[in-house]
């Protein structure tokens, strides 16, 4: 079964109205700035909200400054607003064993298909709901940590093949998002999605399967080099019998190896919890977790001394991630110049932060589709190691696509703009004019093929008519790019974007003021002088071409807004827009 196809298809039927995101309300309680060595200014607030959340808008920053540092930090750990509606997981209506027996082979197959379809659809809806939570920023740090754990304790829907289990795992991350890593490690060895993902269902006394045991040590607790092959084999024995059925945890007592195991020097009739206790007691464990947390929040590989210091703290605080992060947010090194604005942001951050800064509110599923295109699919990490992050997010291709997606959020780029091939590409520059009609037809045919995919948006009545599929064009999984883009377009939402009003409200009049306003609003870092000059030159040229005098751009409803959006598109396509 072609999973990506299933994964994307239900997006097509999204006709959600845009749900207005709530700004974190500025707390009324004005607290005098407490005596602290750390500055509480726009730079600090923006940095904190970029790293501990999904980007800061101008009003977020004002509100945070008004609140004061202490009150703001307290809210950061408890949430700025009450939670919205919880996601109600619907349990699939599975047939009882008796009902199953009564079914014909064909009925069973049909029933299974329908269950899987519903299950996939529900996982997609959940992914959209989660991204909506990120964008709503009611509790940005919690959502940030859920994403961190998703990349740390990875599981992928593609292998787990149970959307329900993926949802439950995400709920587990929400429950422990800011709690104890130790609790989470205990919980993860009985998490159905994890047990399915790493084949522990098949890990039995007679025939151990080492997959979970190995990753538990290598990626989830210690890191390579802190255990032996023998430890992996023994740990696998301790994990025997833990499995999942119908998305629920099951313990198969008969498959469990009750014998004595020796793991990292400790012997006993160890079970999974006994194994986890041994892992937690290792010196390498808090170091591993600390280095991952520091790297995630600071955007660079931490020094060994720093890791050691934070590891000691984490151990002393019973693996509390809240305590860890509170300390980090109070650490002047977190606000150092080589940290602030120096981190390449991930695709979900890029999409969510841009939506927030632009104040547009596409459905979460649309944002998620964009992030997937850029290499970060919710419920689909590329491997058990999670996402590499940092510079690995940026290839020549994903960089250009980021700009395209920003253009789609702004409404200035359409999917077909990206997939429309310039017919001139078919010919040498010199004989472009002489290109035969046949070649033109063929080129357009290929384009139509590229625009077509097996993923047809059935509910998108306004989708353009599809041409015949050309043989030579990629389809199937490779067509996923096109499918995601088109479906982003097909999902209908109202874009209430008024950049003119925004500039006017800030008092901007001249071209330079307009460029500066947009750059300040849309970028997390300061625009470079070169880019600023290029943007100014662009605005000037476009304004002049429309014969609009300087100072009157914001008066022109059509051209004015259009030029502002194009400029915003350029700004969000700049190198600066990839940093926070």
């Amino acid at each position: 079964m072609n999973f990506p196809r299933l994964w994307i298809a239900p997006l097509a039927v999204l006709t959600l109205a845009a749900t207005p995101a709530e700004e974190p309300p500025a707390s009324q309680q004005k607290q005098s700035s407490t005596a602290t060595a750390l500055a509480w200014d726009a730079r600090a607030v923006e940095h904190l909200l970029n790293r501990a959340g999904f980007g800061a808008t101008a009003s977020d920053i004002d509100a945070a400054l008004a609140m004061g540092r202490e009150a703001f930090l307290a809210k950061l750990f408890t949430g700025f607003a009450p939670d919205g509606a919880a996601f109600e997981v619907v349990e699939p209506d599975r047939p009882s064993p008796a009902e199953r027996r009564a079914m014909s082979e064909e009925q069973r197959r049909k029933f299974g298909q329908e269950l899987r379809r519903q299950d996939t659809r529900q996982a997609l809806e959940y992914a959209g709901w989660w991204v909506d939570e990120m964008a709503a920023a009611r509790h940005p740090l919690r959502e940030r940590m859920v994403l961190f754990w998703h990349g740390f304790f990875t599981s992928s829907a593609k292998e787990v093949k149970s959307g329900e289990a993926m949802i439950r795992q995400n709920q587990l991350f929400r429950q422990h998002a800011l709690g104890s890593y130790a609790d989470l490690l205990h919980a993860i060895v009985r998490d159905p999605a994890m047990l399915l993902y790493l084949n522990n269902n098949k890990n039995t006394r007679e025939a151990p399967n080492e997959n979970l045991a190995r990753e538990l040590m290598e990626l989830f607790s210690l890191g390579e080099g802190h255990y032996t092959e023998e430890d992996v084999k023994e740990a696998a024995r301790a994990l025997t019998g833990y499995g999942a059925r119908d998305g629920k945890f099951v313990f198969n007592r008969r498959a469990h190896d009750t014998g004595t195991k020796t793991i990292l020097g400790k012997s006993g009739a160890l079970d999974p919890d006994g194994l986890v206790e041994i892992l937690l007691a290792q010196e390498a464990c808090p170091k591993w977790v600390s280095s991952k947390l520091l790297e995630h929040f600071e955007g660079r590989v931490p020094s060994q001394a720093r890791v050691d210091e934070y590891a000691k703290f984490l151990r002393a605080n019973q693996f509390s991630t809240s305590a860890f992060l509170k300390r980090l947010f109070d650490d002047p090194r977190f606000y150092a110049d080589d940290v602030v604005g120096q981190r390449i942001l991930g695709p979900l951050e890029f999409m969510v932060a841009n939506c927030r800064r632009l104040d547009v509110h596409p459905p979460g599923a649309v944002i998620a589709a964009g992030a997937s295109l850029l290499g970060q699919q919710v419920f689909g990490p590329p491997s058990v190691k999670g996402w590499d992050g940092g510079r690995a997010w940026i290839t020549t291709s994903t960089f250009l696509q980021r700009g395209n997606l920003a253009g789609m959020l702004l409404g200035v780029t359409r999917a077909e703009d990206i997939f429309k091939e310039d017919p001139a590409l078919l010919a040498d520059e010199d004989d472009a004019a002489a290109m035969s009609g046949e070649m033109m037809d063929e080129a357009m045919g290929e384009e139509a093929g590229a625009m077509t995919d097996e993923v047809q948006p059935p509910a998108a009545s306004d989708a353009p008519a599809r041409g015949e599929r050309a043989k030579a064009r990629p389809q199937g999984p490779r067509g996923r790019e096109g499918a995601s883009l088109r479906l982003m377009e097909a999902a209908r939402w109202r874009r209430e974007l008024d950049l003119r009003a925004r500039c006017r409200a800030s008092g901007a009049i001249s071209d330079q003021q307009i460029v500066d306003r947009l750059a300040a609003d849309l970028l997390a870092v300061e625009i470079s002088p070169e880019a600023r000059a290029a943007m100014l030159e662009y605005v000037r040229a476009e304004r002049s071409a429309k014969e609009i005098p300087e100072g009157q751009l914001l008066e022109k409803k059509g051209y004015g807004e259009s030029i502002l959006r194009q400029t915003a598109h350029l700004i969000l396509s700049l190198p600066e827009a990839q940093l926070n």
Partner: protein
Amino acid sequence: MNQSRRQLLLGAGALTGLSIFGARASASVRLRASPLFASEVPRTLVLLQFSGGNDGLSMVVPFGDDAYGRARRATRIADKDVLRIDDYRGFHPNLARMNALYAQGKLAVVEGAGYPSPIRSHFKSYEVWHTADIRGRATGEGWVGKLVSAAWPDNRDPNLVVHIGRNVPYSLYSQTHPAASFPTPTGYKWAGEASERAALEKGGEVCEHGESMDEREPANNLEYLRKVLRDGQASSEAIRRAAVRYRTKTEYADDELAQALRDVAALSAGQVGSRVFSVELGGFDTHSDQKNRHDALMRRLDAALPTFLADIGGTEAGKNTLVLAYSEFGRRVRENGSNGTDHGVAGPMFLAGEAVAGGLYGKHPSLTQLDDGDLIHTTDFRSVYASVIKSWFGVEPARVLGAKYPTLPLLKA
């Protein structure tokens, strides 16, 4: 780029309907594609990674070894189904066209490839294969990165190394020659009008430093991003041009690997300046239900690689293209409890193309003399790298690999 040159290019682009981004790249394309240079198709290497740990015993099957039958039950391939190479080994039944390549002498099989002190973690073992060093990433660039620095130090073509797929392997990592990468050439572009593209190019440009920027790895992320933006802009149009213009001789399957190889053929024919391509076939981590999954992977490989070689066969590109296929490790000899196999050690490597001296190389590892249940490697994979580096690219292997390894006569003299 100075102002007058920019205006010149802008003007030229406007005349022919080309964008400014293509101007630099297409100028070099034109040079290479002109009749004077038409016969100079450079030697290229296509790296094909079997990701996840390929079960070599199910690909080149030692059916003549009793120990195979004893160790394998659920994943066993019956003697009668094996496409025999000799009385000991043969290809997986789904590799009929690969078998034909072998018979034509266009496929070399290096048995038992691996390295000492093997690592059973996917990621760490990838690092070893990608850096050709047991220390992995700690040693710096990937082996292809070191190869391009040694072979073409002054070549700054952004298309020099191309990865077609989602995740760029570390082997391509280079401080001076970053790879261009994309899942598919279609859509590999920034969509905007010419005036906007010009503004973006200017906005992302690093002033004053000029070409010296290329010489070192940008220390900060902003400079790095500027460089990627510039490379992406220069690369994308040349790539799309080559992909859209190409006409295949053979019909490629509707499959990710087949389509990626179709793109490799297109970029070779279009002479976009690439010397190393990288593609991937994923899904080899067969801890469970191995038979079905591995069978399907073999079918996909057999549909893709021979089609590609047939397509470019008889052309200059055909003569000058060498395919090297490998996996980060093989799998355990014994099956696990899930009708699958766990991470192992040694496995076969493959070289394919018209330049290959086909046949068997190395030595099949013993199925009874095992190291803790694993095959013991008989050929260091770096010997294969060294052979390619030396015979194909004429570079002293130690400059790339950091040490000497015996070479194998894998290529025709």
